[in-house]
């Protein structure tokens, strides 16, 4: 897929092109068919080969022939002619019922929505009552009052479908009247009616059009149904529904009678519905043409391999060793672009490595890549992820599944969304224990309560039965940590675990991590954009920029003397690193998007120390401290404090 789209090149990606193609593939036939219907309906008298009502009992129930292309019915009437006349009936029916529905529903909905109060209450109760009766029954009752026949049946359907227009119009008014511009119009004393028309009507138009297509489709089906049961169009007049009624009686003698009117109904409704779908999509999204990031990645691959970094010196106590990892993603179907390159780092037993950088630098995807959970849009292409001697990239999905939870676990940024809202928090911990450690139901629950107690939540047995929406953010994050640690993993990936929390709670959670690390002994990969948080909890820090690590150093060394200009910039921009009085310095510009990285040093665009030579790829070099900067030795970026 991506290979093809890359070869194709051009401003449109393969998928965007396919989407536009299918846009026309849908709208073109649907529109043409409906246009054809209108033409046939208007010219029915001239187009129909026979009089639709003219009987010829000698030629009854014939199959298709040269004289009667679609055969004849039980009274010898020409089916094609009746189909053509039925076309006109269908369009009249749809137009009548839809107009009645709009003319009745929209003004009433606008009025009660704007007026509010008792009228709104009373009308809405009646609408609810009508909507709780099956639609066809409502139509049948109204027909009972008005009497059968096409126009009366369509008024009945119009009344029925007016309820949805009423609710739509009321809904738009209710939301718009709270908008500032309507309120301010009221404040300056514009009269009610003018506010309604000038401000509210344009907002109703898009959903109205969508509702219109839905209604037309439903009306066509309902009209056919009512005519079929003999309450709509009355014989001998031809409509698609009455033709099917005839067909039903003569099914055993001539089944073909059922085909032409049925196909006509299906094609018409299908065209209307498809147009409605397209309209809804384009109104919902504001007709977007997908232009993908201009990012051919071939050039990139060549350069990445031209400047390999020195292999990481081996250490005896490593838990995780990531080497030369490259991850590519193809967001929304565009060509694949690398988001992580040459990623190399290691974490020792019981160590906490901070992964620090701005948004978009590739921190989170690193964590997900280790778990092989990047999703369908991305994949890792090079390198190794060695966990306790096993390369995770070589594992099959079932093997990887065994590793997740047991050996590596992850805590996510927002505990209120990373815990399932539909199960109690105790269930979610116990489930993991049951599935991964094969504990019994009872033992798993008991252990879950123990874990909840261990992460510092009072009354754990009671809290275990709570749902996540019943807990505070801090408490929910403690639960998420308890779940992550439930199988005693060797490595815990914590992805911005304090970012979504109140500042006062952040500190407690950080302390909890340190406590638990002392007890469980796991290594932690701590992803954060906050250097102050990293300083608090990490042993070493790896600074990431644009999908690669630019500096790795023990936390004190980094704070004392950053070697990479980006690391220095981050430190200077951190409130803990700068003196209070002058405003915090910022790093000009933003992290370039994947696929739009500069060819050489990726920070060079924003770097104050750039030289000509920075246009080449820069390897990560050094001993106990690693840095990816050609000028690391000569620059004195100084202490940040």
């Amino acid at each position, binding site marked *: 897929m991506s290979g093809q789209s890359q070869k194709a090149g051009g401003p449109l990606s393969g998928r965007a092109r396919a989407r536009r193609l299918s846009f026309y593939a849908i709208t073109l036939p649907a529109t043409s068919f409906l246009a054809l219907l209108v033409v046939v309906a208007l010219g029915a008298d001239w187009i129909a080969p026979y009089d639709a009502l003219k009987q010829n009992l000698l030629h009854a129930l014939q199959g298709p022939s040269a004289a009667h292309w679609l055969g004849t019915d039980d009274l010898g009437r020409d089916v094609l002619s009746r189909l053509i006349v039925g076309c006109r009936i269908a369009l009249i029916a749809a137009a009548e019922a839809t107009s009645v529905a709009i003319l009745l529903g929209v003004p009433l909905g606008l009025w009660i929505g704007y007026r509010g109060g008792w009228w709104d209450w009373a009308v809405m109760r009646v609408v609810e009552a009508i909507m709780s*009766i099956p639609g066809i*029954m409502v139509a*049948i009752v109204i027909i*009972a*009052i008005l009497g059968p026949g096409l126009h009366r049946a369509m008024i009945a359907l119009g009344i029925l479908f007016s309820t949805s227009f009423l609710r739509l119009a009321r809904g738009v008014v209710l939301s718009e009247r709270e908008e500032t511009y309507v309120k301010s119009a009221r404040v300056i004393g514009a009269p009610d009616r003018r506010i309604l028309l000038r401000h509210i009507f344009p907002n109703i138009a898009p959903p109205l059009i969508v509702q219109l297509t839905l209604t037309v489709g439903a009306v066509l089906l309902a009209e056919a149904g009512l005519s079929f049961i003999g309450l709509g169009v009355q014989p001998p007049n031809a409509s698609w529904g009455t033709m099917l009624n005839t067909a039903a009686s003569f099914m055993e003698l001539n089944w073909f009678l*059922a085909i032409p009117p*049925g196909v006509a109904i299906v094609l018409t409704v299908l065209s209307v519905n*498809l147009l409605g779908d397209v309209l809804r999509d384009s109104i919902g999204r504001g007709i977007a043409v997908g232009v993908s990031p201009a990012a051919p990645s071939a050039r990139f691959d060549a350069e990445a391999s031209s400047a390999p970094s020195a292999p990481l010196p081996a250490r005896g106590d490593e838990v995780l060793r990531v080497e030369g990892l490259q991850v590519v993603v193809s967001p929304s179907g565009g060509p694949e672009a690398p988001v992580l390159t040459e990623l190399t780092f290691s974490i020792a037993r019981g160590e906490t490595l901070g992964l620090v950088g701005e948004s978009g630098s590739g921190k989170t995807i690193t964590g997900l890549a280790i778990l092989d959970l990047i999703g369908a849009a991305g994949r890792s292409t090079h390198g190794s992820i060695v966990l306790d001697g096993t390369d995770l990239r070589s594992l099959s999905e079932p093997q990887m599944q065994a590793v997740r939870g047991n050996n590596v676990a992850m805590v996510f940024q927002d505990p209120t969304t990373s815990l399932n809202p539909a199960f109690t928090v105790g269930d979610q911990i116990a489930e993991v224990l049951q599935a991964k450690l094969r504990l019994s139901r009872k033992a798993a629950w008991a252990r879950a309560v123990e874990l909840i107690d261990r992460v510092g939540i009072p009354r754990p047995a009671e809290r275990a039965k709570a749902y996540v929406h019943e807990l505070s953010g801090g408490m929910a994050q403690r639960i998420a940590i308890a779940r992550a640690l439930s199988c005693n993993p060797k490595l815990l990936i914590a992805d911005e675990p304090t970012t979504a929390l109140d500042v006062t709670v952040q500190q407690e959670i950080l302390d909890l991590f340190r406590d638990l690390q002392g007890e469980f002994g796991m290594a932690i990969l701590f992803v954060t954009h906050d250097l102050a948080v990293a300083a608090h909890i990490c042993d070493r820090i790896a600074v990431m920029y644009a999908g690669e690590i630019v500096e790795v150093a023990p936390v004190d060394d980094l704070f004392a003397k950053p070697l990479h200009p980006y690391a220095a910039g981050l430190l200077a921009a951190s409130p803990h690193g700068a003196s209070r009085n002058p405003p915090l310095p910022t790093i000009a510009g933003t992290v370039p998007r994947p696929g739009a990285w500069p060819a050489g040093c990726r920070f060079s665009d924003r770097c104050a120390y750039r030289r000509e030579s920075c246009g080449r790829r820069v390897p990560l070099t050094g001993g106990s401290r690693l840095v990816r900067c050609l000028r690391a030795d000569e620059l004195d970026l100084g202490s940040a404090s």
Partner: protein
Amino acid sequence: MLRLVVQRLLAVAPLLFIVSVIAFSFTSLLPSDPVDLILGDTGTEEQHEMLRERMGLNEPIHVRYFEWLGRAVQGDLGTSYFNSVSVAGAVMQRLPVTLSLTAASAFIAIVVGFAAGVAAALRPRSLVDRLATLGATFGQAVPNFWFGLLLAAVFAVWLRWFPATGFTPLTTSPWEWLRSITLPAIALGLSSSAAIARQVRSAMVGVLQQDYIRAARAQGLSRRRVIFKHALKNGLVPVVAVLSFQITVLLGGALIVEQVFVINGLGTLAIAAVRQQDIPMIQGLVLVMVGLVVAVQLVTDILYGYLNPKARPS
């Protein structure tokens, strides 16, 4: 959970009241005079007046409404103008027929709709997804009664696997019941299964992108468990609302599909009642149908509370 049931029942009571007012007053708007309907052109002016007096038609409409309501609450829905049978009796006799058709088609719609919706959601834009979406689009455009005709033509008339017409009660013969209900239920269930499939697909696609799904996977739970336990329970929440609406639609559709297969259910009764301007019968039918719809809504509300802890009253 009991609280939820009581709360919903209390909310439903005013709805039933309003529907009864609508059913009574609307059908009292019928153009024909019931006395003329019953006596026809025969009878003297006095006889007409006597019957009018005896039927209470000279009373003001609100008095008649409360008398009718009082009897309706006790299960007496009056007597048909046309053939003097009790409305409640006639409705109750046909109710099991329409109910089995509605229930069987709901079953089909739910099973097919869920299978297609989940399959499509698991691999968006895949071949399965495209086929399911295409099928759903078609399914919603096919009139249920026409689909019924085609099914009858192929499987009853041609292949003779199923009876073309008629209905066998479940109590008479479960096997024959199944044979008589299969084609009508498929015909009726098609468009609802399409609607449900669309809803399930979009709900599941949304849920599968949630953090808690990725978090559950990060915890090493199997893809199957995460999809069918964690995702489905959340994905069901928006679907349940559609389900209640779809069952109302099915109940209405049953009235028409019954005609295709010559099944003597509420539909046949309703059409005859409308033709004959049989007011008590129409009133009774509307009330019973609303009662059914309300019962379905109650069940789906409780289901909703079970699936979505936030919706439970605390």
